[in-house]
């Protein structure tokens, strides 16, 4: 086994071009577990933890860009304006894991249980990839995540980060709903989104926060979210219970989203 330690993004892309078999390593919270248990022995590892270009986030041209090497601790500490992302990041593992685990790791591992992924899906994020030979390209999250633990990343590419448009909900008057851990990959509950977006419009809630939603619409919303889920029966729980969980959690999440909703400055 060979371990390569690039100090810049250019150097890392050079390594990936010459050693496409090299597995990227950042916080180690996925790959090191597999290595410790002897389940994987990659021929080469490229350590991205010294690549400073990947460890920053920024807002530019009406978009947010989140570097693949940003840790969950950094998100919680610095990205308070992105409440859903902060809440998801706070739920990752423990302090030790949040100090090391990165968004790029969640993307690269592409587990349906990756905590950051539903938020990126709800943001309609694009995933930014780069190679030495072909430069940069972006893929919508749903074309990037091609299946359980599968992504569209080419062997010579590295995941640079995720990018999404700022102010999604208020501008389009839409509610976006993404589900993790209840399907082979991250799912969007599009029928539920349309139903609740229309319900918010007809009840006048977009303009008047105090205008209540009809409880029947909330029930329908929760039911449509549960229908969109594709859960499994396994040792940890039944599909029926997981679907029930979707119903309960989507109802709660809608309540939180409406009560914590930030109005844009032009209103």
């Amino acid at each position, binding site marked *: 086994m060979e371990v390569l330690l690039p100090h810049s993004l250019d150097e890392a892309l050079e390594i990936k071009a010459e050693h496409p078999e090299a597995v990227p390593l950042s916080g180690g919270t996925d790959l090191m577990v597999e290595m410790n*248990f002897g389940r994987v022995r990659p021929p080469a590892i490229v350590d991205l933890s010294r690549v400073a270009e990947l460890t920053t986030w920024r807002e530019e041209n009406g978009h947010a860009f989140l570097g693949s090497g940003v840790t969950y601790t950094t998100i919680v500490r610095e990205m308070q304006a992105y409440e859903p992302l902060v809440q998801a990041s706070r739920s990752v593992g423990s302090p030790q*894991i949040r*100090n*090391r685990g990165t968004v790029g790791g969640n993307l690269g591992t592409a587990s349906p249980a990756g905590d950051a992924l539903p938020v990126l899906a709800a943001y309609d994020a694009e995933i930014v990839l780069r190679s030495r030979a072909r430069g940069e390209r972006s893929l919508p999250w749903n074309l990037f995540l091609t299946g359980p633990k599968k992504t569209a990343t080419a062997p010579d590419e590295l995941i640079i980060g995720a990018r999404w448009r700022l102010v999604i909900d208020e501008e389009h008057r839409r509610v976006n709903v993404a589900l993790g851990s209840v399907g082979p990959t991250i799912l969007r509950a599009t029928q539920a989104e349309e139903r609740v977006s229309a319900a918010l419009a007809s009840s006048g809630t977009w303009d008047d926060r105090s205008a209540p939603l009809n409880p029947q619409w909330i029930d329908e919303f929760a039911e449509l979210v549960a229908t969109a889920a594709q859960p499994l029966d396994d040792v940890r729980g039944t599909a029926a219970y997981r679907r029930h969980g979707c119903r309960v959690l989507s109802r709660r999440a809608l309540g939180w989203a409406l009560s914590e909703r930030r109005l844009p400055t032009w209103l």
Partner: protein
Amino acid sequence: MVVRMRVNGAWREADVWPGTSLLAFLREALGLYGSKNACEQGECGSCSVWLDGTLACSCLVLAAQAHEREVRTVEGLTSGDRLHPIQEAFLEAGAVQCGFCTPGFVVAVADLLDKDANPSPATVREALSGNLCRCTGYQKILDAVQLAAERRRAGS
């Protein structure tokens, strides 16, 4: 590969298999047995160390990732036979039973008290959520943290 890092203030190096974890490097190559090997999947916190000042599970760090970097382990908290005040608080509060998880807890508590000298009970629980103890049931560990924090604030 030859991996070189500053451990508890002193430069150390060893020629190891490139897939060696930082935990295995500390224990097997350097003979620092304070960081414990239990779950090897980042669940238990028994191997907690600081990497460039950040609390991490050393089982999930590749030793090569710590190359030319600064590592601090539980052995670096004190020198000689003297105990660190957090270790004394653990002893006095009865927060030590089999002792296997203790070094990891002591490191996590030291990390917490460096950041927050007067942590609320909820903050303490969150800060220690990455450390598992299968003996004491945690209450005495929480008592030890309060004792250590009080003494630290009193400057003793």
